[in-house]
């Protein structure tokens, strides 16, 4: 057992996280610009996955339009900073808020719908947002796209991928902090409650409508921030970046990583962003190997990559013992 804990996270996890953070800070200067870019992309995907996982994995609301909120964040950040001349460091949080407001609006139909019906509504939202991007070229650049410059910090433009990587790392850490705090709070427990049993949740004074709306708002906020960072990282955005395939990728991140788990969001996004690059070695078999690995993970670890650690630990400690005890207790109770 661990001797200390931080925000309910065990001491061992804190040490492990601190070690990872040290590596994330110290290693990049020894790598090239391509790796900085890839690492930045992976961290943005971590932010996207954390936001979506809170909505879907914790609060139980299916969404296939996470990329639309990413788009709202990306275009809002670009518009506010380029066209309105707002500082990037104000435009980015403002874009997060604009995205959160959009999430609030999408949340209303979700109050009446669930499961497949909700999924279809979110697909509709994605279609509408795609059409809006194309039909508002004055703001978005339309189908031809719009360029989104790197921000400046203390008078220096963060033109190198390394410097922008550190900005994205800092914002990813802030996202992790907020997500961990949220899931260990009355709000986070309310999310879990409405996913598990709406009836029980309500009889414990959890308001169904407000709680669902809060989940949509928070998820959209994270996606908006991720989108704003994405725009500046890649430097140019067009509607194709935010299509349904991007949303599906985000869903794959959280399913492969582990639904309802922050660690799962991080693992899923990091592994699935980096893996395709590693698999370039397989040339024309790249997609085939990638798909095969996904299937293997989901068959071996149905609860996602996050369940790998506990599974290994159970194996090492001569596992299965606790399970059989529980099974015996269960049959005795019946």
């Amino acid at each position: 057992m661990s001797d200390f804990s931080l925000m309910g996270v065990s001491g061992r996890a804190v040490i492990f996280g601190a070690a990872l953070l040290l590596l994330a800070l110290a290693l990049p200067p020894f790598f090239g610009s391509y790796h900085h870019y890839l690492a930045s992309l992976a961290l943005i995907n971590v932010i996207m996955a954390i936001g979506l996982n809170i909505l879907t994995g914790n609060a139980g609301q299916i969404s296939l339009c996470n990329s639309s909120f990413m788009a709202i964040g990306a275009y809002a950040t670009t518009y506010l900073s380029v066209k309105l001349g707002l500082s990037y460091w104000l435009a980015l949080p403002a874009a997060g808020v604009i995205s959160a407001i959009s999430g609030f609006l999408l949340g209303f139909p979700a109050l009446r719908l669930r499961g497949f019906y909700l999924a279809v509504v979110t697909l509709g939202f994605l279609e509408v947002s795609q059409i809006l991007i194309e039909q508002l070229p004055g703001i978005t650049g339309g189908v031809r796209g719009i360029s989104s410059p790197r921000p400046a910090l203390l008078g220096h433009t963060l033109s190198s991928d390394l410097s922008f990587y550190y900005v994205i790392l800092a914002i990813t850490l802030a996202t992790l902090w907020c997500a961990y705090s949220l899931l260990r709070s009355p709000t986070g427990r309310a999310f879990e409650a409405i996913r598990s049993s709406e009836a029980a949740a309500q009889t414990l004074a959890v308001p169904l409508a407000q709680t669902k709306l809060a989940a949509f708002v928070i998820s959209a906020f994270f996606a908006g921030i991720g989108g704003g960072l994405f725009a500046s990282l890649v430097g140019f955005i067009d509607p194709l970046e935010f299509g349904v395939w991007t949303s599906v990728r985000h869903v794959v991140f959280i399913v492969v990583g582990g639904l309802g788990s922050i660690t799962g969001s991080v693992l899923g996004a990091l592994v699935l962003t980096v893996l395709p690059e590693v698999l370039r070695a397989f040339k024309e078999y790249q997609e085939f190997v990638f798909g095969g690995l996904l299937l293997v993970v989901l068959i071996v670890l149905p609860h996602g990559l996050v369940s790998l650690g506990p599974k290994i630990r159970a194996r090492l400690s001569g596992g299965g013992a606790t399970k059989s005890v529980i099974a015996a207790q269960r049959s005795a109770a019946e």
Partner: protein
Amino acid sequence: MSLFSIDNMSVIFGGLRAVSNVSLALGEGEIHGVIGPNGAGKTSLINAVSGLVPIAGGGIHLDGKPLHTLPPHRRAAAGIGRTFQHAEIFPDQTVIANVMTGGFAHRQSSLLQDFLGTPGKAAAERQARREAEQMLDAFGLLSFCDALAGDLPFGTLKKIDLARALVGRPRVLMLDEPTSGMNDTEAAEVIAACRRIAGEMRVTLLIIEHNMRVIMGLANIIHVLDHGEKIADGTPEEVQRNPLVIEAYLGHGSAAHA
């Protein structure tokens, strides 16, 4: 003046009158039992009080204020707690998280504080955890704190359900078959807990129970439902002697044996 009352309440599902013009009144700290054959409308009665099913007529009052106009979560916040026959525990949460959810009505941190992880939120969280731990300790469940609820046996889940409801500090607590699926030791613990809850905590209890020995020894007043209607009420002795009650039970009993 009663603390809590159900007045002439009806619940209709399609064409079926699941609850028909039922009235009952409970004073503070009293224990009332609701009995009746299967399908008598007992669970529908408390579902209607919780607001999980709509009422077709009548009303529900707590402290003279109408509850039936409020949505379910506001009724809970007003002081109506309950447990479920099948212990609607959140299976992929730890036991402590389940019980802490019960304190939602008394949360000390706002959504923004929860999101930002302010020191105030951290303090509120520690306080909420302490309260939940005390409640689990009272049920002898402290060692299960960090266990995943879904891994625990049914009898334990029923006790967790009760602990979770109590953390919400209800004024009226409705228990749906609190001892079902329990062995004799567990049932005895729950019966003792009910006496403490009503006696020391002054929580008014409305208990649905199939086990006659349990409810007759526990309740001050018994209400008997049959086909959605209240056919009798009174002390356990009075109810046991009531010919209507005997007929309802024997009639159904012999039909079941046939």
